[in-house]
């Protein structure tokens, strides 16, 4: 029935998108009077050429894994959760409150508590739009995106007021106590004479993210709830006929989605900054949409796509550091990849489908 073989759908389309984006980016770099080959080499070298570069790439990838999974889980129920940004912000608030106000003796306990705190806050933030969708029919796209703004305003209010230490100028919380410091890759893998990942922010949360990938896979394809979510997503009326409650599915899918987005805060708030700053999410919630689209809403695809975007972020930072390519152009390069792999999916799919159809006809007649 499907026109495209599975491998073409999963591998070929994103790959062609990437190549197109790379070619366009190279043209833009050349147009701005720089050496494109040098720039690409710099990106690869900077993001993947050293353990330090990997440390940053994996750090960004961890963020995108969480937000990508969040989008994917909701999408299996055909809920388009674009509120990952706000849910991650609230997750950060949850993490900060846990780390600042609970006496946590050791990072292992702190990690568990932070997962609960981040997940809970993110879930609550997603549950409100979910309820409005399930009970009142308010469109989830509109409500989740509006909730991003509410989250930003709420965080603003708290960071300028109650949570800011007296006399500080930054709108940020105090630094978290030493006991809740999550081990970074440097702490874990470095030896005295072989320093690895020096100064890089990648931390133990990466493994939490990988575990979350497995958990989501298990949930969606190996449990009854996952089956119900997928059934509801494929056809609401059929799901209803089979006795699946739409309200329940919408609520549960969105709560899981929000909790996953919230858990991103363990990485960036607890693992990296070790305090809550105003703009801690930095667009990762929206990148999650592109990651999920590119990863075809499958945890493994999301893992790979998150790595790619991590590479783009770290490579982009390297470009900013060592070339005079303006930061706006770096953003354009990142945006091109999102555009081609996420938004322009059909532009590549349609000619490919025609090509495969033609090939198949040829094969049938011969």
């Amino acid at each position: 029935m499907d026109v495209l073989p599975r491998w073409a759908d999963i591998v070929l389309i994103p790959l062609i998108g990437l190549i197109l984006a790379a070619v366009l980016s190279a043209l833009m770099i050349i147009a701005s009077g720089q050496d494109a080959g040098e720039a690409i080499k710099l990106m690869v070298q900077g993001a993947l050429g050293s353990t330090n570069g990997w440390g940053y790439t994996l750090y960004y990838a961890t963020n995108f894994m969480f937000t990508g999974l969040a989008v994917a889980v909701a999408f299996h129920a055909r809920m388009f959760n674009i509120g990952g940004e706000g849910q991650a912000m609230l997750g950060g608030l949850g993490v900060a409150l846990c780390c600042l106000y609970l006496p946590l003796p050791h990072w292992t306990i702190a990690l568990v508590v932070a997962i609960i705190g981040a997940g809970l806050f993110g879930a609550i933030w997603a549950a409100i739009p979910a309820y409005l969708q399930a009970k009142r029919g308010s469109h989830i796209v509109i409500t989740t995106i509006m909730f991003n703004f509410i989250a930003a305003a709420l965080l603003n209010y708290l960071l300028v007021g109650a949570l800011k230490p007296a006399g500080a100028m930054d709108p940020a919380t105090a630094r978290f106590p030493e006991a809740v410091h999550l081990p970074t890759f440097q702490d874990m893998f470095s030896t005295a004479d072989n320093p690895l990942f020096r100064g890089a922010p990648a931390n133990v949360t990466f493994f939490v993210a990988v575990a979350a990938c497995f958990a989501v896979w298990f949930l969606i394809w190996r449990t009854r709830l996952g089956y119900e979510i997928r059934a509801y997503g494929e056809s609401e009326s059929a799901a209803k006929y089979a006795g699946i409650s739409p309200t329940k599915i919408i609520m549960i899918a969105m709560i899981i989605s929000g909790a996953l987005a919230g858990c991103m805060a363990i990485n960036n708030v607890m693992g990296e900054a070790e305090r809550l700053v105003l703009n801690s999410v930095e667009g990762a919630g929206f990148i999650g949409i592109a990651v999920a689209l590119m990863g075809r809403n499958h945890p493994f695809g999301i893992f790979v796509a998150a790595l790619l975007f991590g590479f783009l972020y770290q490579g982009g930072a390297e470009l900013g550091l060592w070339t005079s390519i303006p930061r706006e152009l770096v953003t354009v390069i990142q945006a091109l990849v999102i555009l081609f792999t996420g938004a322009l999916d059909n532009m590549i799919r349609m000619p490919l489908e025609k090509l495969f159809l033609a090939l198949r006809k040829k094969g049938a007649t011969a």
Partner: protein
Amino acid sequence: MTVMTKLMSAATGLALTAGAAWAEPAIIFDLGGKFDKSFNESAFNGATRWAEETGGTFREIELQSDAQREQALRRFAEAGANPIVMAGFAFGSALEEVAADYPDTKFAIIDMVVDAPNVRSVVFNEHEGSYLAGIMAAEASETGTVSFIGGMDIPLIRKFACGYAQGAKAANPDVTVIANMTGTTPAAWNDPVKGSELTKAQISQGSDVVYAAAGGTGVGVLQTAADEGILSIGVDANQNYLHPGQVLTSMLKRVDNAVYDALSQGEDLETGFNVMGLANRGVGVALDANNEGIVSYAMLSKTFGAADQIVSGEITVHDYMSDESCPALDF
């Protein structure tokens, strides 16, 4: 033997450091970007001036996100950049972490104090410059009411306001000082429309001289003041030229000088606490062809008199940030 080896390795260590003596300085701009017509641009101008005068080159980066602060610092330090200058108080917490890891690299941070042996903390006595601006404002005012518009409500900006109010009250004890802040978030640095609204509100309360310490928001303040026919006072860079004859003066904060100094000293950067005040021309008020018509002789002599007294220590301007209170103004 062991002593010998130690000596030998120490000698090689020395030789290595001597070999690596060549180093390019680096400068890191804050999220506002290097062409913000204010703080970052001033830092950039200082670095450019150094490069033009010495023929040297410097590395630079404009940050895209908060996570890059520490990254940029570490990457530059690892690449051997020395000294590394950063513009903005927001680098404080990143630098605290990084400085200890690179003891051979010198860092300079502007507007923030980081206590580490290889860090030069440059702070400005904005209250002194603002004090002079306050004197000029009170002298120029005919209504007896002068006003202040701050950007983001942080202690640093209150320091500006407090110095300004003290200066105004010193020149005219009966003066009324109105102070407003644009907002409480970084967005307040770039909201010229709100700056304009606040200016109009202050004019309706009788103010006829308005001092803006609000980054990009100040552009709106100065514009509205010019439109409504009152005087304004610019900040950081010399903004007198924006509306010739209508900007009374600008409170100069010579970030460019701070950057220039740091780059000129190079790897031998003098670390520690570096205060840029009236005495070493770190702050001041701008006088040029654009405002000479509106600045009277009496005003000038009073201002310069006060400047001398501040330098000599006869007048102490209260620094809001020293105890988070202001004798001349309630926030």
